[in-house]
């Protein structure tokens, strides 16, 4: 079963994160992700960066991932 820590590691491997926290029960996960890469991007593009970092993991291992994406400014705001 996938753990929140694994998902954190997968995302961090593909996207530089200032802060990341993933919580979940092995089936449903909630992620809060802060990255400078999100600056100047629409929400859709921000989520696409996270999905790209996860790649095929989204198809096979992760059933449900809810996410909140923030720029460092929004996070500290």
């Amino acid at each position, binding site marked *: 079963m996938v753990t929140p820590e694994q998902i954190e590691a997968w995302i961090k491997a593909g996207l530089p994160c200032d802060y990341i926290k993933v919580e979940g029960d092995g089936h449903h996960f909630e992620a809060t992700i802060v990255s400078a890469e999100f600056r100047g991007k629409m929400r*859709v593009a921000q989520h*696409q960066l996270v999905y790209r970092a*996860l790649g095929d993991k*989204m198809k096979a291992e992760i059933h449900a991932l809810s*996410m909140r994406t923030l720029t460092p400014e929004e996070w500290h705001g």
Partner: protein
Amino acid sequence: MNIQDVIREQVTSHPVVLYMKGTPQFPQCGFSATAAQILKACGVNDFYAVNVLENPEIREGIKQFANWPTIPQLYINGQFVGGADIMRELYQSGELQKLLAAGH
């Protein structure tokens, strides 16, 4: 017509299209249920819903269409708006209502 053309036709011939698991009356996934409820809360009851569980080709094709790996997916006037999380954020900020009013 290949499946990408079918999807393009669907999203451009209806102002509001929701790709979901199940139907608005009987959603079969929590995220899809949320998405349908948000549209209704915005006063949009006649959106065009596509149940991807009835069509495996669309279920896979829609993920490529928007380069977005999850369902639900909302389109307004042919434009991909987002999934359930983004719909909720846009709804809470009032932006979704504006997008729907402009497109509907």
